[in-house]
């Protein structure tokens, strides 16, 4: 019963947190650009407006994919925050991403097609680091369960500083922020128009936006895990990471997919792999 209540609470609260964060992002970005910027609740207005709009679709599969995307994204978070297996959560997250890619592929527009291709490359780029993060957490906490990792009194960050830095590096890819907003960006001023979401409109776009809020919450939850020995530090670290993301977003040009791919693998190998190897030898020796 407690779990079901928790899941419901998560499903309601996560998009609210994600939406507020998106609002903070837009206000802060505007301030960094010496503008006034929109109201804090602007992302909610946007999504509610999109529900008011008529939805134009290219084919019906698109709707199904958008729905699957948001459902799997919500489910992932539910697994994760209700103490499920983080490994399972990460695979469900990947699946949710795949549904969005399929949705973009299903429309015939060359822009969403290229966006989908780039998103696949990005997925290849960030996935190793995500897996390494999970492995690292297992090595420290001796468990894949979220509850047990969160409950462990060991400061995971001290054992996994390299993994944490690697995770920070791939975070902009997942959050669709500069320098890695290659497949789809918040500001549609790139060669792919809106890339992945070019062909979604109205309520389908709103669903994708909500899914993105779930994803943001989930990823910040993963950051929290590194600092879970002290909840206050953990929450501060999660928000701090997000603000760092905003800062980086505003100070870097968009990079190209080759660099995104090679650098993400390099960092996963050096920082992630190196960290795990040291941990293994220390633990073993």
């Amino acid at each position, binding site marked *: 019963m407690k779990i079901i209540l928790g899941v419901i609470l998560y499903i309601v609260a996560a998009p609210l947190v994600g939406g507020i964060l998106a609002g903070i992002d837009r206000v802060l970005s505007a301030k960094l650009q010496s503008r006034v910027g929109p109201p804090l609740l602007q992302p909610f207005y946007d999504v509610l407006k999109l529900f008011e709009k008529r939805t134009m679709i290219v084919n019906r599969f698109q709707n199904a994919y958008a729905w699957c995307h948001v459902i799997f994204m919500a489910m992932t978070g539910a697994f994760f925050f209700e103490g499920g297996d983080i490994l399972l959560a990460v695979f469900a997250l990947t699946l949710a991403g795949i549904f969005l890619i399929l949705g973009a592929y299903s429309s015939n527009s060359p*822009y969403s097609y290229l966006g989908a291709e780039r998103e696949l490359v990005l997925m290849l780029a960030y996935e190793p680091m995500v897996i390494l993060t999970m492995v690292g957490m297992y090595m420290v906490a001796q468990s894949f369960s979220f509850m047990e990792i969160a409950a462990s009194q060991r400061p995971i960050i001290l054992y996994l500083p390299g993994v944490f830095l690697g995770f920070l590096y791939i975070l902009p890819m997942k959050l669709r922020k500069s320098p890695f907003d290659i497949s789809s960006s918040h500001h*549609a*001023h790139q*060669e792919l128009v809106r890339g992945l979401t070019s062909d979604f409109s109205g309520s389908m776009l709103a669903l994708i936006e909500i899914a993105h809020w779930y994803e943001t919450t989930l990823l910040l939850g993963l950051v929290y895990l590194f600092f879970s020995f002290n909840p206050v530090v953990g929450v501060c670290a999660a928000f701090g990471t997000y603000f760092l993301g905003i800062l980086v977003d505003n100070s870097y*040009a*968009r990079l*190209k*997919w080759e*660099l995104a791919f090679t650098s993400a693998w390099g960092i996963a190998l050096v920082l992630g792999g190196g960290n795990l190897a040291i941990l293994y030898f220390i633990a073993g020796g």
Partner: protein
Amino acid sequence: MGKQTIIPFGPQHPVLPEPLHLDLVLEDERIVDAIPSIGYVHRGLELLVSKKEYAEYVYVAERICGICSFMHGLGYCQAVEEIMEIQVPERALFLRTIWAELSRIHSHLMWFGLAADAFGLENLFMLSWRLRESVLDIIEETSGGRVIFGACKIGGVRRDISPETLRDMCQKLEKLKGHMDRLTGVFLNDRSVGYRLKGIGVLTREDAQRLGAVGPLLRASGVDMDMRRLGYAAYERLSFEPVTENDGDCYARCAVRARELYQSIDLIAQAVSMMPDGEVDTKVLGAPKGECFMRLEQPRGEVLYYVRADGTRYIERFRVRTPTFTNIPSMIHCLKGCDFSDVPNVILTIDPCISCIER
């Protein structure tokens, strides 16, 4: 050989607000061919000479393009003055120079913003356009308009600038220099910007000359050519050296424009210090008869006007060859072989002005 995809780029595209249409043939993400097609902005304004009198046509000439509007008006006026052998007062020549250089600063700052937008640095876009507003304020203060300001007319300029305003202008521009240092510093020194610009869309010196490139595009390839050296308006009496770079890539084009910003401020300061007193326009009587080629240096490069008049109040033939038109072959050349993600950078570093191309 990979699968080929054809990406229609434009006419409505967020990277390039103007309606240029390009069919990009892609192999994976590499461009193998780019086929431009134009005509979305074509109005046929060269034919308007038969409907507007020669003195009235200045307004049309100014609206060839809203960015270098003053220079288009200036070029047309100079061509007609050349045919009619009008002596333009000294003061008017200096005022024309000042407005032309202000237009150049505003155009280059606008370009910096659009280029930043093209490589996804929104913050820099906002910064450049904020600086541009201060230049627009100066233009508005002196002429009354922001982008199309109708300050030029045949025989002189439409209004004078008071000495106090000129002094203020110099101070404001001097202050602007400090802000520009920050802006150009990011463009020229930031690592991620350099990654997007260095070695992209290289145009060698030979190719640039063969393909008829002009303006900053040509100067970035190491060719020293600047039509201001012809000495029109007051340029004859101002000292300056054309800015050149040798690499010919997007970064070099950025660097050329960055240095031209400072050059323009310097030229304005020189013009203000040498400003003579006197009238700002002469009376124009009669109608032009004859023909003339007139060349100017616009922010985008060399522009050529051809005016042929037969002694009536209507000009017989007016032709303008704009810099972007002659830069198209270079643009196609640069696009081939680059990545799809470089397309906005390459197109923007040519600084395209589509309404100039198609008139």
